[in-house]
């Protein structure tokens, strides 16, 4: 009953096409933004920032990027970890070699570097599909792993193999506290997510979905596969690159190439699948889920085990994590291939009727 849209008439196409056509949704989103920007900074502890909030926000952006490629355009990618790495190392190099640039500008510019590389690695997608394309993206991933380690120009010849992010400041304000990191990440994510949502509901997004659903028919109605696929790779890589730069500058502080290995690619893919392919909201939900699950397991499993007399080590917890992830992937694919986002909209459908049964 609360969620009824009765009485909300759309008098223009513009209103009908808005991102949140229903007033309750607009209010909810506004409330969420207010809480995220104005309330959280006063109540969150450093642990919550570093363990939950900052990773969730940054990985949401990365998941949105991967969703653009996999969910909206239907191109499989197992190389997203390497693209995060490209963003991170590009931002690092820009910061080191052009010290007059503010670190936040470097983060933004690194997205363009990642986009350029993404276009190059997207060229094979014009000829290959499905799991063949997955292999091509694996080539990108492993090549990235090797380059970050062996091409010394990228790491500025550090002897130890790990690099440090520059100190974060804006017009003289020091912004290296967890609260500042969180707010910066939130700004980037919200603005870029809005931009992507706009693209996705416009003609370019429709081209991507046409390619995904039936690329032959898409070509016949005039969609140029090259432009559509490469633009998907470009936008996706841009977002993932910016997320990678944020991951390095705002979360890790100092990092080695292993931070962007194939495990990271799989994690992002799980977020996209569990959250829901083809949904911006789903990407965020997936990120929240994947960040929270290990924390939850780490807290819950040892006491549960102790209750039945079983000593559960951290190694065992991580094995259980693998098992639960794996089982959840299969579960979601079988039960609800459109993931948490679909469950969310089913929930909203039920909300429209609640408390009435039908």
């Amino acid at each position, binding site marked *: 009953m609360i969620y009824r849209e009765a009485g909300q008439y759309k008098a223009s196409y513009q209103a009908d096409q808005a991102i949140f056509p229903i007033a309750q949704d607009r209010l909810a989103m506004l409330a969420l933004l207010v809480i995220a920007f104005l309330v959280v900074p006063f109540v969150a502890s450093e642990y919550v920032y570093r363990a939950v909030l900052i990773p969730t926000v940054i990985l949401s952006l990365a998941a949105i990027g991967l969703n653009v490629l996999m969910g909206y355009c239907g191109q499989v990618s197992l190389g997203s970890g390497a693209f995060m790495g490209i963003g991170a190392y590009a931002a690092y190099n820009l910061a080191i070699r052009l010290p007059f640039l503010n670190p936040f500008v470097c983060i933004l510019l690194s997205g363009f570097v990642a986009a350029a590389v993404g276009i190059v690695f997207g060229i094979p997608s014009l000829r290959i599909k499905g799991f063949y394309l997955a292999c091509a993206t694996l080539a990108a991933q492993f090549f990235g792993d090797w380059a970050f380690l062996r091409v010394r120009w990228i790491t500025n010849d550090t002897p130890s193999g790990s690099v440090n992010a520059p100190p974060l400041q804006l017009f003289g304000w020091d912004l290296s506290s967890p609260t500042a990191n969180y707010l910066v990440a939130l700004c980037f994510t919200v603005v870029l997510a809005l931009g992507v949502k706009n693209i996705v509901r416009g003609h370019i997004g429709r081209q991507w979905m046409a390619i995904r659903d039936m690329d*032959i028919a898409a070509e*016949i*109605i005039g*969609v140029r596969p090259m432009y559509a696929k490469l633009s998907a790779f470009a936008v996706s890589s841009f977002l993932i690159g910016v997320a990678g730069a944020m991951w390095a500058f705002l979360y890790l502080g100092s990092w080695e190439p292993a931070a962007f290995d194939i495990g990271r690619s799989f994690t992002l893919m799980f977020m996209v699948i569990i959250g829901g392919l083809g949904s911006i909201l789903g990407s965020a939900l997936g990120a929240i889920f994947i960040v929270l699950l290990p924390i939850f397991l780490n807290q819950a499993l040892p006491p549960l085990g102790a209750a039945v007399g079983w000593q559960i080590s951290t190694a065992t917890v991580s094995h259980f994590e693998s098992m639960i992830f794996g089982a959840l992937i299969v579960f979601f694919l079988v039960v609800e291939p459109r993931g948490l986002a679909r469950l969310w909209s089913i929930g909203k459908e039920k909300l429209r009727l609640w408390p009435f049964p039908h």
Partner: protein
Amino acid sequence: MADRVRSLTDVLLSVESISLSFGGVKALTDISFDIKKGEIRAIIGPNGAGKSSLLNCINGFYHPQEGAITYKGQRRSRMRPHEAAEQGIARTFQNIALFRGMSTLDNIMTGRNLAMRTGLFWQALRLGPAEREEIDHRKAVERIIDFLEIQHIRKVPVGQLPYGLQKRVELGRALAAEPELLLLDEPMAGMNLEEKEDMCRFVLDVNDEFGTTICLIEHDMGVVMDISDRLVVLDYGKKIGDGPPEAVKHDKAVIDAYLGVSH
């Protein structure tokens, strides 16, 4: 319905000596005919005669090994599908090629794709030019939705629609491109009498109001004889008849092909 008598002179598309084979199978052998601007041309023939393959050649999906197609004065031996679309050729498919993940409205909007020009940056901002363009094209699409009487299923994902409605949506998508040549592959397959009459009405209206040239493949002889200006008859990949319905109806070779007399 009265026979249509019209005098049409300009040739929009002409097919010259097209031959197409897949491996050892000859789908089309030495096919030649033309389509005049503004006419309704039907392609008929038994199953497996090569009708869909012919349509696929016209819009560039298959490339014939021999022969050429002249469209709007330009002679080509091979065409790419999106070139065909850019030149004003639109089509529907025998097995419905709609984008199942999208709604009716979005599917028809993809038909406007060629006319939508704003780049990534403006799309991301969605203010000003991008929003205006989207609204302009939405208006055009809504006119088509009105024309085809599918307002009630605008927001429904097409995968959930019944077959007859999906065919109508696919026609809408083809019309959205404002084509000069519309290729329809069995637009009335699987429909009942009432749906067929609706579809006929749409096809005739499109031809009347917009002057769109139509080339359709159809099995229902009643429909074909009623609405088409001229016919092409195919059998085993060869042309066995070409002319107005009255003439073709009485042609011995055509009657033999349909009655299955061995030849």
